[in-house]
């Protein structure tokens, strides 16, 4: 029992007769008394009549008294102690100051609870006060934890919290007598729009008074990025719009700029002006991502003096930029069968957007007609290679020389080099105008092969190198045997440019009959150039694989698959990368760890068990390595690391895998650690909601944490009997019998005296 037992007395009937008999006898006594009174109803003297009625009524009462045999029952009772839940909001918004320059809201709650301690102790006879934090999970809270541990909850959901509390009644030995709720009311759950409808009905049926205490004051100055509305992904080079809601409190008439940055670089800015002291303005940013991949974008507004919260002035989000179609620029030095079959292939690929420019006429050519009778248009070299080169995913330059200064691309080597360094892709296809057959070959720096003399016109069958047997561009079969068989079945290539592989190049196909510097001449070579990729095919005869290969009716698709894979590899299709790295979640709440998964594969795309996988967490703002971990890959080449709660900001996650001294691959992803989530974006105190909750449940509302528990309504705990009862009879006393005899004797004497015999 919760309170000490006390004696309690109760008047009871000790008669052995059953209640029904008692009721019957009692009724008979009353009827008899009534009849007796009726007998003297005609008595003309009122005093006599009333005297006889009084005595007969008293006699009837005495008879009932003796019938009931009244007694006194003595019982021991005790009061059951119920519980009162003191709910304390532990969401992150409770770290905001009560008012500018004042302690935090959590601190104010701690002080209030400390001040209430004597009252709590005084009421401890009747109630067990349980202090519980919610974030919105319910967790017992000590005063020490309240003072020392900052509130971190990412969400405020008062209705869900009260539901959980109610549900816990079933598991608690004590009944709930009341709730005292300390909160700023900044609900961002079900009650974010206020208490109405179904939520109100739920609280009205709550059954326990919920008294609410508003913590914090209005009048805070704060700018906050309240929401960012933008798609999760975008198409490269296609415009998209991000709508940013900026809430301002206490900034009436203030104008400022909202700025959108991608990993430190300003992408766009938008002016915002606030009309009132509590205003939400929408800033719209329209921009076109120019690279594929995942990027962290940050929206921010300036921090003004005396702002209550500065963390909510910035919000980060990630955007996955994908291709709608691979945009390919095909430039051919002249019409040729190689150009024709490559165009046919690329045009029928729904994933490719092909833009072509062919040199249909050179300076010596005379069409013998005026320009207006020709369909020829100017070759917009400047526009393509200076202004728009970055808009292409892949440049295919086919059998092109720079001897004619009117069409030469030599002057654009710099911009193409920069395009590749920035992640572009180039496929350079030879022919009779390339390499040693051209007086001037540009792009020498960026190509994986170098000129080694005049071309070799001997037809030959291209041979798969060991690297080519594993590389996704040329590994076209389901295994090495079928890949080699597929290449063996192809017709010869009618000649090739004499070239040598440059250091660092990977040769996928070579000419088994032609030696350059003692090595087989490379036919198909690749390498990475900066962040870009380059493929060089030292012949314009690959169309034979597309056409001549069908001579026997074989359904060979080596040409289509080789070029299809080449395009995907060149533009870094994520499915064709040796190393894959991805953040477990593109955005992480403040204080939460950043998880990163990686898979290491070899150049033949087999998982490399035991590869050393190094993951770096790099600040996208300043390129600083914030953290680094190295772990061995598992049997499936997979590895996982976790960086414990890095500071808020945009990060690149760069993964590298090595086997021995060999670098297997490198890949990156992006992750945003939010400065403030939904919870911290709103610094207001929603006293109205707290008041509505109190009203709906029958509780009291307090505007501040200074109040008295005496004003808080609680359901009283019930009393229960404890121990044995003891009965003490009251009727078997001589004086009660004497009293009855005297009453009846007096009535008999008066009746005789008044002449009623």
């Amino acid at each position, binding site marked *: 029992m919760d309170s000490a037992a006390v004696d309690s007395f109760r008047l009871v009937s000790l008669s052995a007769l059953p209640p029904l008999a008692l009721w019957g006898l009692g009724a008979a006594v009353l009827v008899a008394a009534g009849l007796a009174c009726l007998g003297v109803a005609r008595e003309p003297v009122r005093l006599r009549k009333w005297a006889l009625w009084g005595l007969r009524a008293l006699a009837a009462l005495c008879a009932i008294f003796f019938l009931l045999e009244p007694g006194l029952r003595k019982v021991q009772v005790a009061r059951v102690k119920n519980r009162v839940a003191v709910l304390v909001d532990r969401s992150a918004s409770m770290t905001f100051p009560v008012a500018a320059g004042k302690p935090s809201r959590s601190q104010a709650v701690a002080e209030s609870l400390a001040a209430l301690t004597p009252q709590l102790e005084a009421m401890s006879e009747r109630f067990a006060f349980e202090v519980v934090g919610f974030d919105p999970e319910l967790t017992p809270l000590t005063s020490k934890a309240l003072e020392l541990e900052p509130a971190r909850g990412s969400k405020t959901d008062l209705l869900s919290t009260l539901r959980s509390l109610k549900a816990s009644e079933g598991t608690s030995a004590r009944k709930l007598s009341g709730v005292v709720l300390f909160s700023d009311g900044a609900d961002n759950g079900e009650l974010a729009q206020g208490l109405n409808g179904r939520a109100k009905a739920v609280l009205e049926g709550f059954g326990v008074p919920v008294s609410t205490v508003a913590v914090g004051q209005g009048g805070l100055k704060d700018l906050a990025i309240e929401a960012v509305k933008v798609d999760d992904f975008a198409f490269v080079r296609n415009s998209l719009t991000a709508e940013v809601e900026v809430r301002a409190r206490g900034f009436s008439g203030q104008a400022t700029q909202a700025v959108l940055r991608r990993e430190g670089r300003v992408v766009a800015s938008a002016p915002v002006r606030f009309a009132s002291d509590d205003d939400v303005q929408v800033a719209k940013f329209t921009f076109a991502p120019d690279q594929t991949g995942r990027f962290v974008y940050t929206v921010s507004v300036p921090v003004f003096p005396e702002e209550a919260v500065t963390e909510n002035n910035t919000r980060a989000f990630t955007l996955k930029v994908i291709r709608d179609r691979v945009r390919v620029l095909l430039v051919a030095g002249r019409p040729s069968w190689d150009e024709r079959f490559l165009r046919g292939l690329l045009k029928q690929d729904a994933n490719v957007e092909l833009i072509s420019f062919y040199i249909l006429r050179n300076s010596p050519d005379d069409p013998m*007609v005026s320009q207006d*009778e020709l369909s020829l248009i100017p070759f917009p070299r400047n526009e393509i290679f200076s202004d728009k080169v970055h808009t292409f995913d892949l440049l295919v330059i086919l059998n092109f020389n720079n001897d004619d200064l009117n069409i030469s691309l030599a002057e654009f080597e710099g911009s193409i080099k920069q395009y590749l360094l920035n992640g572009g892709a180039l496929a350079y296809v030879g022919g009779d105008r390339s390499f040693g057959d051209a007086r001037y070959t540009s792009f020498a720096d960026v190509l994986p092969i170098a000129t080694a003399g005049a071309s070799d016109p001997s037809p030959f069958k291209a041979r798969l190198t060991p690297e080519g047997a594993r590389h996704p561009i040329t590994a076209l079969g389901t295994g090495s045997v079928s890949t080699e068989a597929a290449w063996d079945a192809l017709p010869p290539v009618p000649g090739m440019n004499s070239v040598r592989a440059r250091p660092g190049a990977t040769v996928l196909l070579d000419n088994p009959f032609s030696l350059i510097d003692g090595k087989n001449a490379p036919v198909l070579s690749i390498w990475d150039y900066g962040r870009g990729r380059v493929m060089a095919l030292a012949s314009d005869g690959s169309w034979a694989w597309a056409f001549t290969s069908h001579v026997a009716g074989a359904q060979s698709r080596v040409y289509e698959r080789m070029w299809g894979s080449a395009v995907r590899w060149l533009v870094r299709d994520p499915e064709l990368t040796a190393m894959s790295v991805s953040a477990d979640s593109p955005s992480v709440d403040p204080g939460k760890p950043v998880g990163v998964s990686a898979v290491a594969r070899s150049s033949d795309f087999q998982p490399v068990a035991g590869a050393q996988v190094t993951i770096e967490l790099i600040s996208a703002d300043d390129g600083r390595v914030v953290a680094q971990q190295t772990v061995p890959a598992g049997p499936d080449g997979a590895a996982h690391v976790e960086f414990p709660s890095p500071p808020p900001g945009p990060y690149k996650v760069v993964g590298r895998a090595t086997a021995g001294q060999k670098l297997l691959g490198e890949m990156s992803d992006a992750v945003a650690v939010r400065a403030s989530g939904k919870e911290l974006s709103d610094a207001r105190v929603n006293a109205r909601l707290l008041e509505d909750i109190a009203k709906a449940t029958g509780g009291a509302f307090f505007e501040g944490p200074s109040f008295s528990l005496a004003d808080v309504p609680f359901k009283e705990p019930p009393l229960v009997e404890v121990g044995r009862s003891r009965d003490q009879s009251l009727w078997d006393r001589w004086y009660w019998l004497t009293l009855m005899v005297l009453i009846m004797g007096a009535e008999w004497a008066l009746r005789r005296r008044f002449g009623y015999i």
Partner: protein
Amino acid sequence: MRSTSMSRSVTRRSLLGAALAAPAVARAFGDASRFIPAVAQHGGTWDLRASGLRRLAWELQRRTSVEVVLEARATPLDSPKLFELPFLYLSSDRELPAFTPAQTENLRRYLTFGGFVFADANDGSAGTGFDASFRRELAKVLPQVQPRPLPATHVVFKTFFLLDTAPGRLLNVAQLDAWTIGKRAAVIYSQNDVMGALARDESGSYEFEVTPGGERQREYATRLAINIAMYALCLDYKDDGVHILEIMRRRR
């Protein structure tokens, strides 16, 4: 595709010199990647326009950047060599004998996998002679494909020269017919004997009179032949968006 209009100061002599010099560079890489006019050897008279094809190659060399082999290559319709020559000229001046099954099958595969046939009725027939027999044989080669007249908006009329007619030695039928596979015209057929307009005799003179338009019609027939060769090489390149506005302006 270069825009610069040709300088009028360039002499015909210099043009011919340049045209003849260009193959000398290209020859170093072999012939396979160049435009080689191939002539289909069938069971009938097939070799009437060899000089016209040579002239076409020469005109291509002279007027465009296409590298050519001047001499036409006769290739049997059932030969695997067909698959080294993506441009095939098929003609006769009379009814074609029925193709053998091997010829039919080889030609079907050739057209299906990217080969191009320019068919030319040397007899200018319509409903008889070469015309009837060629249509009959093509119906066996490509039974699923029906010939359709090419509209004036088809890319073949703008692959190099801007044309609005399809003349040859004759002007019997104002349009070309095509058998289309996917979006590609695999066979283009003229009933006007286009190569007859280009053919020359051993003395270098034109072999035939061109009627009814005379030498002007011959020039247009030459341009049409060049456009057809350009179509075989570039497909629908001139239908790309970057060309459309400029071509529309010039056609006004």
